[in-house]
């Protein structure tokens, strides 16, 4: 059978390959009106903040803004493109702050840093804490927090 990579099992990086202090920068992504519409449809969250352009003209934001959890979902996807804890671990916890709006047309990327490593739920896995910032095109941090991931240890 022709194979372009491992067809089964986990090929790393493993818990041992991650170092506290390692930093990663993701590619950017432009958040569009379509992202917001699809997220409203999927989540069922039709708050006027995200869906009523006329109402939002008179708000402090002046226009519709992305759902906070849409920003976080995009953040998680961006982080998985390069940050090994996100790409190869299972998300087990989050502490997260929404600091500023994401508007239609904003381009965001993720800065992340491995902050801590500790023993996991069993001998085969460890816990990795990552500090992350979601940054817009003006360099403003619009979301930030810590994510915790369960990452497999290298098999003995």
């Amino acid at each position, binding site marked *: 059978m022709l194979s372009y990579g491992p067809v089964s099992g986990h090929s790393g990086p493993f818990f041992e390959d991650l170092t506290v202090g390692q930093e990663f920068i993701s590619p950017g992504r432009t958040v569009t009106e379509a992202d917001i519409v699809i997220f409203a449809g999927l989540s069922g969250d039709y708050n006027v903040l995200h869906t009523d352009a006329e109402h939002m003209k008179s708000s402090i934001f002046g226009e519709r803004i992305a759902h906070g*959890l849409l920003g976080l979902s995009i953040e*998680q996807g961006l982080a998985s493109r390069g940050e090994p804890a996100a790409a190869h671990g299972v998300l087990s916890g*989050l502490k997260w702050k929404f600091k500023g709006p994401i508007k239609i047309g904003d381009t965001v990327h993720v800065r992340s840093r491995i902050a801590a490593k500790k023993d996991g739920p069993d001998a085969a896995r460890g816990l990795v804490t990552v500090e992350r910032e979601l940054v817009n095109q003006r360099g403003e941090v619009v979301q930030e927090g810590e994510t915790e991931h369960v990452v497999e240890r290298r098999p003995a």
Partner: protein
Amino acid sequence: MSETAATVQCFFEDVEVNVPLETPGITLTRAHVALFSGITGEAGPEDPNTVPGLLPLCLSSGLGWRVPRPPLAVLAFMGFEWRFLAPVRVGDTVHSVSRTITKRSMREGGVVIEERSIVNQRGETVQAGKLTLLVARRPAA
């Protein structure tokens, strides 16, 4: 003034502390997983029946609109802490149970801290945490 759709909301003054609110359920399907993977751009899990951890949390925000109480007049979602306690699989039906544990008045509105659990069809809590929301005051009549 008659109540229009825009005024039927749960404002800061209306939020009751420690009253549990239980939503209807929603069955997780492969369609949910595919749409969500399209939004995040995250490579899907090897097992197509694995539900990404953030998806039930995102769905719980919409489930919160389907309760007898009018929707909360949220001005901003300020932050949250969350634990992913057990896997969620395609075919599972989840609902959310929440209650306000604290409310604190501020100049622009009020801060409400909500405890929320996502529970599956076997009654197991699969995700849980605390959310901090800025909620509008009732506008002067």
